[in-house]
């Protein structure tokens, strides 16, 4: 479960151009949710996603991830938290260009120290689910945008994180590929029980998620 209590975040704090990007956010996200932070550009949804994912710090308030306060963690502890408990899917896929699809999917598991046999079977399982099992030996550069994003999702989910944070995952995909990706992520949510939080203004995602959390000007509506 994710809990946010009175979370505030400023950019350029104490400068004339100060921006209050998260305003007193109070929110609870239960395990296994398939939710979306929605709102216009600049409303703070990515900032909120980054704060939940321990990628970014906040100026005040508390964030609990499975009852553990994460705003007070050190840089190394946050890195470990991201590695062990959170999966990320970015807009630009961000796969490692010199590694094969198989190695990209198993990358986080290797960082976690999983055994090679465990990694192999898990990579094949996820690749099969996301229909990229025929591309395991390919390099990311040889794949289409849709396939690359599925590899990114596979990488995020392979290590069985408790939560996947997906920031504009469909921004570079056409509607057909976007729908396919959303369907697959929903399937992962249902089969694997992983919580998936999107930050996007894509209507297609909004139609498919179970909960839409609307934001405007740094605040929840």
């Amino acid at each position, binding site marked *: 479960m994710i809990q946010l209590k009175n979370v505030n975040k400023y950019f350029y704090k104490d400068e004339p151009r100060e921006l209050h990007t998260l305003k007193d956010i109070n929110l609870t996200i239960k395990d296994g949710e398939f939710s979306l932070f929605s709102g216009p550009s600049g409303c703070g949804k990515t900032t909120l996603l980054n704060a939940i994912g321990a990628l970014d710090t906040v100026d005040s308030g508390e964030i609990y991830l499975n009852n553990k306060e994460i705003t007070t963690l050190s840089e190394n502890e946050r890195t470990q938290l991201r590695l062990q408990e959170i999966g990320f899917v970015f807009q*630009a896929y961000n796969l490692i260009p010199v590694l094969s699809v198989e190695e990209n999917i198993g990358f986080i598991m290797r960082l976690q120290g999983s055994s090679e046999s465990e990694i192999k079977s898990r990579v094949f399982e996820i690749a099969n689910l996301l229909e990229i099992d025929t591309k395991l030996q390919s390099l990311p550069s040889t794949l289409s945008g849709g396939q690359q994003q599925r590899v990114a999702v596979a990488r995020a989910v392979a290590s069985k994180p408790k939560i996947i944070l997906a920031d504009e995952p469909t921004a570079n995909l056409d509607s057909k590929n976007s729908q396919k990706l959303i369907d697959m992520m929903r399937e992962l949510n249902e089969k694997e029980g992983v919580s998936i939080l999107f930050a996007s203004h894509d209507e297609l995602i909004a139609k498919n998620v179970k909960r839409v959390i609307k934001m405007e000007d740094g605040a929840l509506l």
Partner: protein
Amino acid sequence: MFKLILKMAWKNSFLRLSRTLLVIIMIAVSMSMMLGIQGLYDGMAENMIDKSKRSDSGDISIFAKDYRIERDIKNIIKDASSIKKKIEILDGVEAVVLRLSADGLISTARKSSFSIIRGIELKDEEKFGRFSEFLKGGELNLSKRSAIIGIELAKTLKLRLGSKVIFSTQDSSGEINSIALRVRGIVQTTNISLDKNTIYVDKQILHKFLSVDETYATQISILSKNKELLSKLKQEYPSLDIKSFFELQPMMKMMQDMMIIFNSITFFIVMLVVFIGILGVMYVSILDRVREFGIMLGIGMEYKYIRTQIILESVIVSFIGYLLGAILGVAVLLYLNQYGLNLSSFADALESWGMETVLYAAIKVSYFSSTFFAIITAAILSVWIPLRKIKKLNPVEVIKAEK
């Protein structure tokens, strides 16, 4: 995990092939040239030291107590033959020669000059210092009243093979005596003082000429790699003046030290160039991939793994450069060792400094080991600045920047 990081480092090293090749070639060429220069410096110094030892003092020379202060025939080692026999059987002694020398005046019909007459036994000198290798003209013949003369002295007196000279000096009783000699050979030892002043005659003839007992000598020279020998001899013969090569030839010691300094300067400059080269390429390579590293940090990769990957990339490129440089360097050194560098157009200047006109390179394993450590150190140090940039990287900024 290390296997994966090594794989990423290897593949990233060749991601920009032309850039990587450029660094490899730069390292290889710089290194091979440096090895060539080091080899020539050392070869030149070693050659001069070697010839100086072989032609004169050996590793250790023994004189009568005051002989080097007052080069008089009275200051002579009286039991030289028995000392020689005792030294020859000592551990590590390769060769021992006795020499009898006297200062005097050498004259032709037109010219005269200060000279040193040196009585030698050709067989012993050959064993001691391969004397025949110094022969520049004529033959090694000291029979009857034949003489061999230093090349510079021959030039000064305008002597040729077959020329007749008169050498005058004081004998052991103080009488001035002269001996007529015929030049049968001309030698060049590159030991300047010998080549400028010395005329070699048969030791027995000189003994008779100077009226000196045959067991006497003015100098006992020893070739030996035994480092303990000097102190041992000093203990054994406290009444004699026993000196090491570098004590007798401080210029050679200075030259050797100078060569070490030259080599160090060359080494430092080349390594600085290599360092700047690797730094430049690694910096650009890392800046090109800031986003990649930011994402890695973002998804939970610890900084230490990224640091290992970057260091490995730098080390891989540098090591390949080193291997290529070592192969090229061996080729250059072998060529210079075999055929030498011909500087005959500077012959006069070089010979006046006692140097050969053809410089031959030395080959030492230490060239390759010290270069290996320096290049690997340069490779590791060169990524220090780019790594600091990665360490300060905020993944959020990188992710933001991609949008």
